[in-house]
């Protein structure tokens, strides 16, 4: 048990935090320069400068470049047509083509935006050249600021969610296994013939997991702070307060599962099914806001979704109790319902 308590969080945090990222650091670009002119080379050099772009190949034919897109070696193709410089000088207008592999739609949108911004830059350079070094800015000046995570570090976003995963797995799986294990081994009979009250038994079963999971959370938070340098803007007390209520809900679900089944295997199976659905829908990996209405409605019964939202708000934005009131109330109601139902079912099973 002890190795599990310490090893699982470390492995999970390390692997998940690094694996789970939408950050685009490297765009493989194939350049098809059909013009071979000074102007086209200047444009190419803009892409070659150290940016997100990594120029995978230069090619003369589009078919060859497309091949790279097909085999997945390249993400993007820039095509400079053969009278690019001429058009630019004579008509003051030229066009280039930027082709992006868009199977991953959101990555494609970002890659396209990067490409466009480099070409805009190039436009700017031409203007500056033409006006004899005078600084001409586009008339609308857009300034960006990214709050709470200025470097757009994906780990900052993921780690709090992973912590939730950690305590959930401990809470739900261990507790769902536990009672059914006693049932399978027949030890539950022993307890039923003893004068122990049902609720005492339930508390006795669940309390250790509750402590272990809270300890895990503390351990995970420490790792997050030290290894990943994740900010904890809000109050630690608030995090633990919400977590302790949240755990009651998960433990309740676990216990409920274990009263519904006869074997550990069935328990594991049910717990697994719910865990997969809850985790995938929770907004841990893909944003809840991007889901269709009805899928967001399913999340009303998804405790993981609530807690992930809360912990991200508290840790990354420093949200306070009044900000998280609604989701917190949902978790609290959840905890009460799950526990009541579980204890009620358990009494039926036991008697």
């Amino acid at each position: 048990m002890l190795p599990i308590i310490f090893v699982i969080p470390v492995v999970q945090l390390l692997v998940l935090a690094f694996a789970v990222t939408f950050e685009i650091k490297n765009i493989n670009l194939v350049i098809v320069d059909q013009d071979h002119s000074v102007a086209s080379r200047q444009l190419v050099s803009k892409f070659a400068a150290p940016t997100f772009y990594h120029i995978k190949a230069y090619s003369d034919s589009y078919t060859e470049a497309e091949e790279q897109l097909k085999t997945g070696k390249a993400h993007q193709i820039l095509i400079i047509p053969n009278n690019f410089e001429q058009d630019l000088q004579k008509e003051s207008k030229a066009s280039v083509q930027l082709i992006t592999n868009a199977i991953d739609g959101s990555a494609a949108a970002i890659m396209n935006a990067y490409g466009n911004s480099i070409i805009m830059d190039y436009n700017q350079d031409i203007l500056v050249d033409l006006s004899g070094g005078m600084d001409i800015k586009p008339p609308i000046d857009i300034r960006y600021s990214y709050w709470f995570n200025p470097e757009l570090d994906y780990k900052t976003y993921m780690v709090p969610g992973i912590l939730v995963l950690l305590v959930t797995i401990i809470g739900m799986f261990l507790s769902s296994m536990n009672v059914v294990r006693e049932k399978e081994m027949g030890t539950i009979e022993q307890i039923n013939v003893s004068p122990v009250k049902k609720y005492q038994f339930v508390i006795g079963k669940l309390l250790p997991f509750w402590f272990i999971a809270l300890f895990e959370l503390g351990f995970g938070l420490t790792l997050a702070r030290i290894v990943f340098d994740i900010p904890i803007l809000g109050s630690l007390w608030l995090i633990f307060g919400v977590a302790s209520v949240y755990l009651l809900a998960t433990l309740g679900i676990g216990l409920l599962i274990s009263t519904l089944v006869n074997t550990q295997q069935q328990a594991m199976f049910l717990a697994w099914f719910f865990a997969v659905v809850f985790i995938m829908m929770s907004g841990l990996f893909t944003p809840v806001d991007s889901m269709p209405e009805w899928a967001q409605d399913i999340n009303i019964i998804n405790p993981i979704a609530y807690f992930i939202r809360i912990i991200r708000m508290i840790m990354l934005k420093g949200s306070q109790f009044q900000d998280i009131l609604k989701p917190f109330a949902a978790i609290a109601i959840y905890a009460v319902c799950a526990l009541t139902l579980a204890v009620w079912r358990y009494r039926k099973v036991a008697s």
Partner: protein
Amino acid sequence: MRGFIIKEFYHIFRDIRSMVVLFGMPVIQVLLFGFALSTEVKNAPIAIIDHSNDQVTRAITTKLLSSGFFILSDQVPGEGHIEEVFRHGKVKEVIVFESDFASKLEKDRQAGIQIIADASDPNTANLVVSYTSAIIGDYQQEYLKGMSLPVTVRTESQMMYNPALKSVFMFVPGVITILLMLITAMMTSISIARENELGTMEILLVSPMRPIQIIAGKVLPYVLLAFTNALIILLLSYFVLGMPVKGSLVLLLAESLLFIVMALSLGIFISTVSNSQQMAMMLSMFALMLPTILLSGFIFPIENMPVPLQIFSNIMPPRWFIIIVKSIMIKGLGFKYIWKETLIIAGMAVFFIALSIRKFKIRLE
């Protein structure tokens, strides 16, 4: 051999729980995840602080709100309240127009907009900001039309394979792969582990059947079932989720069959290393689930990961099958482009089978 297959079907069809698992779960998960998993930005709540409220800022606002990406959320009284709004949750982005926007633009040819994004979710922030600036850029182009800038390079963007940038194209191949892999490996490993646990495997082993025949007899029905499953999942993806099948359907089915065989051999291998159904289940659910979801390129592009994880992802069978599925279904490519991936999966199947036979022999010692 025939008797074996009949017997295995009896096992499967008499066990309602496993039937539900076999056919119900994939359907639910394909539909649920196929629709729900998405990174598209649609109707993101934004707030606008407009210090000018003139015709230009209103025009930009209208343009932003009619794009379909954004909806106007709460009123924010002033810059001082932005943090409060973000802390509360919903709003993704605040756009601030400076005062006298239109007149500054007219006279100084210079006016400022500030975009402040809640970057606690960096991906959404990135998308929201890039959409916003693209829309404002568009407006600027229109605005400048009358004034004719001396020189411009125009970009024609083309989104290959997925012009509408639908998330389904990214996630459905992954969901198909993960389901086939987990369900197939789990079914096989559990059914073999069950025979081990019940002691019936021993009886089979003292019979004149060769171990290879025993395993083949056990596994063949699951090939059939898994293939049926694959068909159901593909039909759902095509008709309900709107996935295209641009390439050859026959090739897609053949590759699916190969992948199923690979997953089955992995299941056999799992059952040889675990001594109970419990353990077989644990191994095939938990040990396989997270790595197959995370390190296969299902949700998160592999090339963005740190190098050690990229290397590690090479031994994940789903990684290769996802490439195959995307290539055939979305890109419409032929075998010429995926023979390498095919070979890798075939190699993995052979590897797991060889390993299982070795393990099996050791057990008999």
